[in-house]
């Protein structure tokens, strides 16, 4: 029966080749893991940063984490609300656009907002909000913290001078770990 098997094998190989020269599109691969890591970074940033007391008025003691634009986190933020930032419970708010940002302490800017970063400095300059994003050039556009990838590992650039102007202080060990400090 060897002969028939070989015929079958050749047919299989030919049919695989037949579809071979016929082009398609590739799916963009964003892994869940990358944003789980970024979510964990956000929690750590919040713990290393000290906000001025007036951003926690008596009626709003919770820590406000906002995500603006298309939410890339999926389920990565799940369970975050059970964590505490210096004794404060975390509240997560999703926001549509950079134009109308509610009271946030930490604001993650999604890649979907790449072309609207111009609105960033105008809206944030006078407010004690730490902005974080993985958009390339985010710090140059006035953002506070930008995720960068070095040898497949996540690191971050921190805009220390801008934070100081907003009255926000970042812990020295966080500055030590940063890929660069502006």
């Amino acid at each position: 029966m060897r002969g028939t098997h070989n015929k079958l094998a050749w047919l299989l190989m030919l049919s695989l080749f037949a579809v071979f020269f016929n082009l398609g599109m590739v799916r963009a691969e964003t892994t869940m893991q990358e944003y789980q890591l970024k979510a964990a970074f956000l929690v750590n940033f919040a713990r290393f940063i000290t906000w001025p007391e007036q951003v926690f008025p008596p009626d709003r003691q919770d820590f406000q984490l906002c995500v603006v634009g298309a939410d890339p986190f999926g389920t990565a933020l799940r369970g975050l609300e059970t964590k505490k930032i210096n004794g404060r419970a975390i509240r997560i708010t999703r926001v549509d656009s950079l134009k109308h940002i509610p009271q946030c302490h930490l604001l993650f800017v999604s890649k979907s907002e790449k072309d609207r970063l111009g609105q960033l400095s105008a809206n944030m300059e006078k407010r004690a909000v730490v902005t974080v994003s993985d958009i390339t050039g985010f710090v140059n556009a006035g953002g506070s913290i930008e995720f960068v990838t070095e040898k497949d590992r996540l690191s971050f650039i921190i805009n220390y001078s801008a934070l100081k102007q907003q009255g926000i202080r970042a812990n020295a060990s966080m500055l030590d770990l940063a890929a660069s400090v502006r």
Partner: protein
Amino acid sequence: MVIKRIPMDPGKRKILITAAIQVLFLMQAAIPVLAISEEDNKYIDMNLEQLMQMTITSVSKKPQTIADTAAAVFVITQEDIRRSGVTTIPEALAMAPGLQVSRISSSKWSVASRGFGGYTSNKLLVMIDGRSVYTPAYSGTFWDMQNTLIEDIDRIEVIRGPGGTVWGANAVNGVVNIITKKTQDTLGSMVRAGVGDQEKVSAAARHGSTIGTSAFGRLYVTTNDRGSNMLADSGQDAQDGWQNIQSGFRMDGMVGAKNEWTLQGDLYKNKGDQIVYPYWSDSFPHLKTDYSDFTASGGNLTGSWQRKLTGGDLLTLKAYYDGNNREESYYEQTFATVDLDLQYETALGERNSLTMGTGFRHIDSDFEDSFQVYIPDQNKDLYSAFLQDEIKLIADTLWLTVGTKYEHNDFTGSEWQPSARLLWKPAANHSIWTAVARAVRTPSMLEDSGAITMASFPVPPLYTTTQTIKLWGNSEYNSETLIAYEAGYRWQAKRNLSLDVAVYYNDYDDIYTTLSSTDPTSFDLLFANAKEAEGHGVEISVNWQARPWWSLMFAYTWQELSVNWQDPSLVATLDDQFYTKNNPKHQASVRSAIDFAENWQFNCWLRYVDEIQGRDNVNMTEVISVPSYFLFDANLIWKPWNDLEIMLAGQNLLNSSQLQYAAELITPPTEIERSIYGKVTWHF
């Protein structure tokens, strides 16, 4: 089909019971973790230092550096391995173009790069996380002793062609680097269990967690019980069942932002049945078939330390210990190896980036001899140093890499292994490279000072005395040398389509052969470097993501090798024919991976291997022909939910059994049987 029920011997039972206990123990340790919901973000409680050590892994991503390498490199990723359904490392290697992988029996393989295959295939250097697993006894790799947990493999880098400049002696025709995942990537627990006809029982467990504030660790255990195959001549049971268990650990950590360290180790035990034929003895019946078994056990410990210095310089210190014992019915070997390596990378001006290194290895060996094999106990030292400079001739366009390794070994003294490689990138998606390199294979202990019995027979007229023909080691035996000329082209045609072509011409000298003893009264033979060889070939691989849900991987290899006497007045022998015809001229492979529904994947793999010839191990003028064949593997993966994966796999589906190779030693021609197995993998 007749199913024979063979009572399990106590040794096997012991291995399986130990395995079961270890798996249970690991599961116990893991149970508290179950309280966490499967969807929870496992990184949430890590500190910044830990998070910054995590690598971002993206599906089917190949390391970027491949396009910038002036060598024939192919990377087998964990995703390739997972979707192929292979259960051993050599099976995974069959995905790479330019390699010839044939299963000799359940536990034995011939794995070669660009020719010179065999059970004792000796021109390919194999390393696991930088630890050499090439055995100095007869030069080669005991594949049955390399049972790293298959899920822990991050990638296998297959480099065809000489790698002597960086990797040292024996990286003649290629280097296989098996690289396991960092512990940052194996957090949480995994349990796998499988059953099948050939893959009778398989089980594995792994648990990874953070250690303190800046380190990670994992523990694993893996075990397999594999069934026997069928003898090609008689259709009888080939008595090659094989059981193994291996367990180990790995830890990775950082000290400050500048120092990274890794500590890892494994312990294994492995036992298999085998038929040794021919088995010569000094009394009647001088030639017999020996139905026996082998046991192999060992352990290793590797530590490495990497420090980032100012200006991007990098200093790496690596040390390992490897101890192993292998006992077969015709000999026993025990090895203890200590290896130390220091490497330094630095930039010299704008254009030069230098890599230099030095190494020391001490090998302590102990052999139990028999009528069949004799190797004296010996200690060997190896010193080496290498220097390589990558020079940017034109920024982002043209690079020249030159370097050499100097090695001093106790067999042949000094060996130099220089190379020069040129890489030209006329555009970002085109790379053209060419290289010339020298590499050597240093003598094995057997070739240097051992002896093997080739025949034994009673002498007429009285038939009371026995004449023995032995093949003796030769202390004058030299290294085999290769000068290789290579070139290649890589083209990233589209985001979803890439092509890689490599061509080579190999010029070998002082290739091993056997010569008659100078003593006219003796029939004995002597190892000698009396052959030369020429090899050439073309290797092509294409990756194509045909649809978002469908990827295809194609590989094709064409090669020819001819072996001749260095002295042209001598007549060609069967040996020459053996090496020439022992390599398949054509090999082709197509793999297809389809995500056909949300949680379903269908993968298949078709391989074609051209005909080869082996030789009869008793009547050495007799040729055993292995006709061309196809192997077809297919599997179906179902993920009923995110952390649970069920796989139903079939290997060699086209034939009930297939002869892939006729080994030059020990194993009579064995047809590898069709295998069907199922497995469940659970991450939690």
